[in-house]
């Protein structure tokens, strides 16, 4: 019984934290060539340290938190604090260890290299 109470309390705490900041899915572009998959995600105003990228069990989870620090009096405000969050399925052929990310002008760029075995290969016919 006591265990169950503990569980419900924790759920409420989570819900509260989620309500403070709204979550949106960032817009993305996904490109692919023979060697890698590129993922561009728009995350304006997100600092490098506030971005987390997790790859686990074939799922890539992106999360970036933006804090808008207002100064003085607000005349108008069309964008505010937000969490950019989106999850993608990653094919098995991605070399997880080789994934790298860069953040430039509010755009997150992920390089997802394909593992050697997944790259297309030209097979040569040996002269018999």
């Amino acid at each position, binding site marked *: 019984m006591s265990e169950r109470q503990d569980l419900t309390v924790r*759920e409420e705490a*989570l*819900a509260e934290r989620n309500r403070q900041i709204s*979550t*949106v*899915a*960032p*817009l*993305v*572009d*996904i*490109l*692919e*060539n*023979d060697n890698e*998959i*590129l993922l*561009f995600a*728009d*995350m*304006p*105003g*997100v*600092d490098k340290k506030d971005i987390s990228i997790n790859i686990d069990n074939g799922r890539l989870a992106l999360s970036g938190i933006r804090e*808008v620090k*207002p*100064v*003085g*009096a*607000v*005349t*108008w*405000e*069309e*964008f505010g604090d937000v969490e*950019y*969050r*989106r999850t993608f399925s990653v094919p098995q052929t991605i070399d997880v260890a080789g994934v790298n990310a860069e*953040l430039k*002008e*509010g*755009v997150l760029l992920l390089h997802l290299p394909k593992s050697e075995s997944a790259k297309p290969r030209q097979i040569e016919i040996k002269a018999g």
Partner: protein
Amino acid sequence: MWTRIRDFDRMFQAMDLLHSRLNGVVQNDVQPRLPAAAWGITESGPRTNMYDTGETLEIRVEVPGIKKDDLNIKLQGNYLEIRGTRKAESQEGFLTHRVERGATSFTRSFTLPSEVDSNKVEATLKDGILTLVLDKAEPAKPKQIAIN
């Protein structure tokens, strides 16, 4: 016969429990569908914030993926115009799976709430946010009035 009904009953109870637990899991851990950020740079222009600190006006504009050279800011009296273009992220030899961001160009203009000193404008671009700090013109600045 009765024992069999009880068996069914027990099975259904277990299924109900599983069902409600799964509902809990879905509600807590998996967000069913996030609202799409249909608020990139649209035809009506990027989203902006404006703050008034008394001495200055501060305007912030969301311009992800736009380089410094692709932005054009014009100030005329208290009329401010911001223009920008973004090129598509097309790269040689790449296959496109999904394009949501795309290339756009926009113009957005404002009438500022007070006169500003056009010589004292500071524009910075960081992490896809353009920040403009405009000094108010002398008559528009707040003044402390001393009581004699």
